[in-house]
């Protein structure tokens, strides 16, 4: 035994945040060795019997798993059950045994492989994803027959190393308190990663760990936030990790406490902080971070994940979001694709930000728009009073009226099968195109709420493409003109007494958030990470101070003036930990 092995830092992709320290446990690479044995005709029925009993045993196990599991896990298991019961699969396997005189293991192996090959060769991505599930079934059936059903006896506190982890194995693993997961493969939307995130198990993927000398029991420290791990960490490194782990736990505890407290300024004025959400994987963090609902649910992933943007797939997606964010409300933004988020089949445009996207695209694609509206109304019916509809890139009244008309059409088509009224689903628009801000008072009379998309508003107003490195410093959220438009929007909303919120990045900038509150914008939506920090700030200052700040900002002449005002405001903040805000 070597006296002192050096520690090794290995980098991968962060898949699920958190720190995990433990001993390695390797999930066997299920590269089965199956022999093409031939059997005697007399043994045919014995072999068929073995197959049937293996199927029954797995079915029993899966049915149990399904019973104890929550909805999405149950769906995954249900799919496995359907496959296990597949009549063609059974027929082919039996034939292989009785006609080709193959042993049961080989019959199973080759039949499954036939399907796997077909799936890998097929065009759609979603089919490819299924091969992990099918391969897992194949291996589990054979393991049952060999009576070597790996009981996944991982020890508590282990760091699991695997090539990739099939869903049912992931579920079993998660029952033990494992410290972390390191996978060679595993996309960020794979079942294993999604489950890691919802279970809070640190996970790093894309790591070619096999080339390192890792065996069962090797000490490992995993950082799922940075996407790194250290093999055989030294005392110092271990200390560092432990400190980091403690800090994380402390932070989480504070956040959980803060999350429960009211959204109130020091003087008792209330405000609401919500989350901007794009992926289901972000949902578990909502309550922990103290979000009171979802101010912006981006829906483009439905278009790009190719999981299908059928009405039912959408309803299922939206429902998951609604479940995870109870009792808060959820504002669903219609597909804002085109531009930088190229829709399949869309041509490249010279100027995508000023191009065919958002509501313009939707109005040209009535089928897409209809489907989404339909899915939203159906979801709203399942969760009455909690769903709001948001239209992107509105530039004038015509568009508002046209979308409303189509929404009404879709609603009327559904009216037999839903309980909610058309007006029960608030109809709102993004204020991101300057023309909409300039006409806010008029538009306010035609919609139920505004949501300020400051990212794009700034780009359009200052004529700056944020992605253009040459001029990206001109993208300036401190520019007085931007604040004037915010104020114009707010006043427009006020004339008709409709709510207005901000969902752009500006809302997560501390002084800016305070300024917005001072102006009278009380609803802010931002990335979940930012919520605790902003909450801490807003709860520690009085509305009077924030009003003072906003008065100054709205009469400022230059960005420098606004920046200085923000800086002064923050300096007053002795009671709040500067770092806490920055990292918020």
């Amino acid at each position: 035994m070597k006296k002192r092995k050096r520690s090794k830092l290995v980098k991968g992709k962060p898949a699920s945040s958190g720190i995990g320290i433990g001993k390695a446990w390797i999930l066997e690479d299920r590269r089965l060795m199956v022999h093409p044995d031939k059997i005697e005709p007399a043994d045919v029925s014995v072999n068929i019997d073995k197959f049937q009993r293996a199927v029954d045993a797995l079915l029993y196990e899966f049915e149990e798993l399904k019973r104890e599991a929550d909805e999405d896990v149950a769906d995954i298991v249900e799919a496995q059950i359907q496959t296990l019961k597949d009549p063609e699969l059974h027929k082919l396997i039996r034939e292989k045994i009785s006609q080709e005189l193959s042993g049961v293991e080989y019959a199973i192996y080759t039949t499954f492989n036939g399907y796997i090959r077909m799936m890998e060769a097929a065009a759609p991505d979603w089919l490819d994803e299924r091969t992990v599930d099918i391969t897992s079934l194949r291996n589990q059936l054979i393991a049952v027959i060999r009576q070597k059903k790996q009981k996944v006896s991982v020890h508590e506190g282990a760091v699991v190393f695997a090539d990739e982890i099939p869903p049912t194995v992931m579920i079993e693993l998660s029952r033990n308190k494992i410290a972390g997961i390191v996978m060679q493969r595993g996309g960020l939307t794979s079942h294993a990663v999604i489950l890691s995130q919802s279970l809070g198990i640190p996970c790093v993927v894309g790591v070619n760990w096999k080339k390192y000398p890792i065996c069962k029991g090797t000490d490992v420290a995993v950082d799922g936030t940075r996407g790194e791990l250290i093999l055989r960490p030294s005392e110092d490194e271990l200390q560092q990790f432990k400190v980091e782990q403690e800090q994380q736990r402390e932070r989480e505890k504070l956040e959980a406490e803060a999350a429960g407290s009211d959204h109130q300024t020091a003087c008792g004025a209330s405000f609401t902080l919500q989350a901007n959400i794009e992926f289901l994987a972000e949902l578990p963090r909502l309550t922990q971070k103290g979000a009171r609902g979802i101010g912006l649910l981006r829906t483009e992933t439905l278009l790009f994940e190719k999981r299908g943007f059928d009405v039912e797939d959408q309803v299922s997606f939206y429902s998951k979001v609604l479940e995870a964010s109870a009792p808060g409300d959820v504002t669903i933004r219609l597909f804002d694709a085109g531009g930088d988020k190229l829709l399949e089949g869309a041509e490249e445009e010279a100027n995508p930000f000023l191009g065919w996207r958002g509501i313009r695209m939707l109005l040209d694609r009535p089928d897409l728009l209809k489907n989404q509206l339909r899915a939203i109304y159906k979801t709203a019916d399942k969760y009455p009073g909690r769903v709001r509809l948001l239209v992107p890139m509105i530039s004038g009244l015509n568009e508002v009226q046209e979308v409303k008309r189509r929404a009404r059409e879709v609603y009327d088509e559904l009216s037999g099968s839903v309980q909610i009224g058309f007006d029960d689903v608030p109809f709102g628009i993004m204020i991101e195109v300057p023309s909409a801000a300039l006409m806010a008072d008029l538009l306010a009379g035609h919609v139920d709420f505004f949501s300020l998309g400051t990212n794009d508003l700034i780009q359009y107003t200052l004529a700056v493409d944020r992605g253009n490195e040459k001029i990206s410093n001109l993208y300036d959220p401190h520019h007085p003109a931007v604040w004037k438009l915010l104020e114009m929007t707010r006043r427009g909303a006020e004339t008709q007494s409709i709510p207005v919120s901000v969902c752009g990045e500006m809302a997560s900038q501390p002084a800016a958030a305070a300024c917005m509150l001072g102006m009278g914008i009380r609803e802010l939506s931002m990335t979940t990470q930012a919520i605790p920090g902003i909450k801490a700030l807003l709860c520690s200052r009085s509305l009077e101070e924030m009003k003072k700040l906003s008065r100054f900002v709205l009469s400022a002449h230059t960005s420098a003036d606004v920046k200085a005002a923000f800086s002064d405001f923050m300096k007053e903040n002795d009671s709040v930990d500067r770092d806490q805000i920055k990292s918020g």
Partner: protein
Amino acid sequence: MVKKTVKVLNEAGLHARPSSVLVKNASQFSSDFTISMYGYKVNGKSILGVMTLAAEHGAEMELIFEGPDEEEAASRICSLFENKFENKSS
């Protein structure tokens, strides 16, 4: 024997979820159910078969039902296609 021609109306084609719904419903009937698409035939009660068909949006297929409840089966399955495999109840 009952034969019906249907079209896949789902924008994303007959992917995992609709395939699952199709097979679940078809398996409730005792009649045999075959899907014929562009010369390729699969057992409509086989989830692996239906999934590997990977029928795309707009694909036409012939549904063949044979058995004591063939009329009922045909009617149910056809309406699934017509409704894009949506749930009727909210």
